[in-house]
């Protein structure tokens, strides 16, 4: 940046390097960290119940695991849609370059997928054994495979199941943390882009991931239970909201710390970043991400945690604040991924991004990608019931 003359001088002509006019990482790369974030947060809820014995989370524990699996199953889809040559995607697994952060994705993804699947199979083993006994034909064959062909439900077997679940969740936590922290590092490791290049990036991504995942579980639980006309476990929602509050305070603090550090240190490309946040991103960052989707939820969460509120109002507010936070994380991903690329490496100007409707990375494709996990979740619910009875206390 020694070439910069004066701060204002850099931006006057809005010169963008000719190859910087095009935004190469578009909406699919916004979705990818969003999806892995949802997986991460949902897994945290399950881990709090299965490993840290937070009993009040029992009604959503199994659902969170299935939710995590449904989204994890399509986490590679946005990446495949993004790749110029998707047919070569296995090159990343077959001939990875050890120096690249991105090369680890296939392995980390495969391991986390395996761990989540095995946790679900062990958590559901008793139900699956019972379902196996009552099912016929191909469904029975499926349940036989899913129960590892074992119908042993003795006390010892159940104890062993619990031990295995605790072990798997125990190793699952660092794996999901690595899965998402590493996504943050993919951005944080790009020194050419001053808005990405910060060691805080994996931390910001990780906490916002927990926020989005927990919010998604709260919202999905309330909506599905309401739609089915079933009761909502108030204690469970309260615990979720408290956990969400903790993670959101952390996430928002680090997001603001990043901006504050830039503006206080005034080093290097600060003026470019400042111009970006106050220029092309003024609306999506300050208005939507910070004011509407962060400050308001923070205030609401504070009230929910500190004061006693009517149960019905509390649950309704929980759903609304969760929806806002889901939006917050999506906008944050947008501002990081696409916003970061609006800044030309010429340090003299900004480009523009116009999403297309029918591109393979377009708006319609985004809607389809985000709809698929819900279809998967529906299919999973046929095999692995979210709730075995209305009385959630009996749910294993």
């Amino acid at each position, binding site marked *: 940046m020694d070439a910069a003359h004066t701060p204002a001088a850099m931006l006057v002509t809005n010169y963008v390097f*000719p190859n910087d006019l095009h935004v190469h*990482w578009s909406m699919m790369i916004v979705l990818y960290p969003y999806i892995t974030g949802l997986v991460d947060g949902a897994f945290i809820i399950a881990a709090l119940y299965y490993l840290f014995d937070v009993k009040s989370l029992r009604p959503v524990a199994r659902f969170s695991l299935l939710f995590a699996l449904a989204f994890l199953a399509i986490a590679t889809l946005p990446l495949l849609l993004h790749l110029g040559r*998707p047919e*070569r995607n296995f090159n990343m697994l077959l001939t990875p370059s050890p*120096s690249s952060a991105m090369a680890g*994705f296939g392995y980390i993804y495969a391991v986390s997928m395996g761990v989540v699947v095995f946790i679900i199979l062990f958590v559901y083993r008793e139900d699956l054994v019972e379902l196996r006994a009552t099912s016929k034909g191909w469904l029975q064959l499926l349940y036989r495979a899913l129960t590892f062909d074992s119908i042993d439900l003795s006390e010892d077997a159940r104890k062993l199941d619990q031990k295995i679940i605790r072990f798997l969740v125990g190793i699952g936590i660092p794996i999901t943390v690595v899965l998402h922290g590493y996504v943050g590092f993919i951005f944080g490791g790009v020194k050419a882009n001053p808005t990405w290049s910060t060691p805080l990036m994996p931390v910001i991504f990780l906490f916002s991931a927990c926020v989005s995942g927990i919010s998604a579980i709260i919202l999905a639980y309330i909506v599905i239970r309401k739609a089915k006309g079933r009761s909502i476990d108030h204690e469970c929602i309260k615990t979720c909201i408290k956990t969400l509050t903790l993670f959101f305070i952390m996430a928002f603090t680090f997001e603001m710390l990043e901006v504050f550090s830039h503006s206080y240190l005034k080093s290097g490309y600060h003026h470019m970043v400042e111009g970006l946040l106050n220029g092309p991103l003024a609306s999506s960052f300050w208005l939507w991400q910070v004011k509407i989707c962060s400050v308001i939820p923070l205030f609401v969460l504070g009230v929910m945690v500190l004061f006693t509120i009517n149960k019905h109002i509390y649950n309704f507010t929980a759903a609304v604040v969760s929806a806002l936070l889901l939006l917050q994380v999506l906008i944050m991903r947008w501002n990081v991924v696409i916003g970061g690329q609006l800044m030309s490496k010429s340090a003299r100007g900004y480009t523009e991004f116009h999403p297309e409707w029918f591109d393979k990375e377009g708006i319609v494709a985004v809607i389809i990608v985000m709809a698929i996990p819900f279809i998967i979740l529906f299919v999973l619910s046929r095999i692995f019931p979210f709730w075995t009875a209305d009385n959630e206390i009996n749910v294993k």
Partner: protein
Amino acid sequence: MKILNPSPEMDRRSFVKKVLNGTIAGSLFLAWPMGGGSFETPEEIPGIKGKDYDLLNQEFAFIVDITRCIGCGSCCVADKREYNVPDGNYRTWVERYVKGFSDQIYVDSPHGGLDGYQHPRTDIDEEIRDTFFVPKLCNMCKEAPCVQVCPVGATFISPDGFVLVDEKRCVGCAYCIQACPYSARFLNPITKVAEKCTWCYHRVRKGLLPACVEVCPTGARKFGSMKDETSEVYKILKGPGVLTVLKKEMGTFPALYYKGARREVI
């Protein structure tokens, strides 16, 4: 005594014949010793043509002399033709810097300078102090971020120091494009793989200069071997003149040097 008096037509014909014969003979006489008699390529980089190319014992450098560039755009045209570069993407481009008396810098590069800078800018209100052109291309970093981030090893540094892209291996993830501090890369809209300037590696291996260097009418682009002590780049780089690299703070250690680059150049 009969005086022969040839017709004027005959006279003219023989004259034209003689002139033509003389011209052809003279041209051949001049052109033949210069390699015109064969279809072999000339030797533009000494020590490569017809010899075993020692991959492990090569070092090349590229120097852009900003004080010589006239912004004609010939280099960009040559490059586009050499590689059939799709419109809107640039392996190399030329920037125009205009400096006003208020020290304000105005930079532009319409079509990457492909059409040459034939007309002055009309959108600048103040009096112009100075104008100069800055050609840009791959910096051939010794610590190349694009090589580091490529997940499949499609972008690599050859043993002779060239940062190259294996288009049969590239998955088109564009991580290298994000990582390049100089924005020298793009995703080819036709092949869907990453592409960038190679300093015309295929030409260099035949002892030829990069296309842009060959066509530069003013010698603003210089290329040569640092193993050849008689090469121009060797003499400039080992000499007392001031040379700079772009974005030194990135720690990429480019093999592309700039002579006469102002501090405004990024």
